[in-house]
């Protein structure tokens, strides 16, 4: 166990959708401390769900073991959430960042994250996992 002086809350879940709602509960629980409005928190809940769903769908083979780590860094005025997996990874430069066609079922996830967050950073490379860093500021 390493010690850290940063105020980080970390949640580690298996790559299964049944744990998605836990990650959202913590967004709600930490949001009050960050002075985010209810609307800000609702946006963050969707963004975090999308990033975790991507890790569940794309990072690991179905039913393969694995972990998804969600780090929450609350501070007054903003909440930063990192979603990290150690799965397949991908080349973020090849992502299509244009608005998705609304009648297609896929490709909406990261687009929603970008629209709902104030800042999004995707760190990934084939073979070395993915880290998505989402920042939401208080707009009160």
């Amino acid at each position, binding site marked *: 166990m390493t010690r850290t002086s940063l105020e980080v809350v970390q949640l580690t879940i298996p790559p299964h959708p049944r744990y*998605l709602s836990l990650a959202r509960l913590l967004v709600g629980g930490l949001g009050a401390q960050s002075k985010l409005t209810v609307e800000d928190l609702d946006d963050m809940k969707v963004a975090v769900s999308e990033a975790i769903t991507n890790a*569940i769908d794309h990072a690991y083979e179905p039913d393969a073991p694995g972990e998804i780590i969600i780090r929450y860094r609350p501070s007054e005025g903003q909440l930063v959430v990192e979603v990290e997996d150690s799965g397949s990874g991908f080349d973020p430069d090849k992502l299509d960042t244009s608005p998705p066609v609304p009648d297609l079922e*896929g490709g909406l996830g990261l687009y929603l994250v970008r629209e709902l967050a104030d800042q999004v950073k995707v760190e990934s490379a084939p073979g070395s996992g993915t880290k998505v860093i989402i920042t939401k500021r208080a707009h009160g």
Partner: protein
Amino acid sequence: MRISDRSEDFLAIVCVSGELDQATVPELRERLSSLLDEGARWLLLDMRELEFIDSSGLGVLIAAARRAGEAGGELTVVCARPNVLRVFDISGTRELLNLRQEEAQARELLAECRQRATAASQAGDSHDPNQP
């Protein structure tokens, strides 16, 4: 998430409450598929009690709307919670899913669409008596 459905006149009404994400999407997908398999094509999804939706939830709705359209019908979604409305807005799916904020408006829309469809098929019949 909780789902209940009932048929009323020509409508299939499906109430969805709670949270719709990757964990609960499969259950809704199955329920909508069964209804469509059984011939339902005028679908009213009452999501006024839905507390959360993300892109996997949108995916099921989009797929069901497409199937209803292909069967000559239409799907509408009733939704009033700001956080859920926002996800429809940002994803640009409001029109595709015939989003309405009140149930009466959704019923009206489906009734109109059905009338138009019936009229069109009757007009088609009279203009082309050779069609079955």
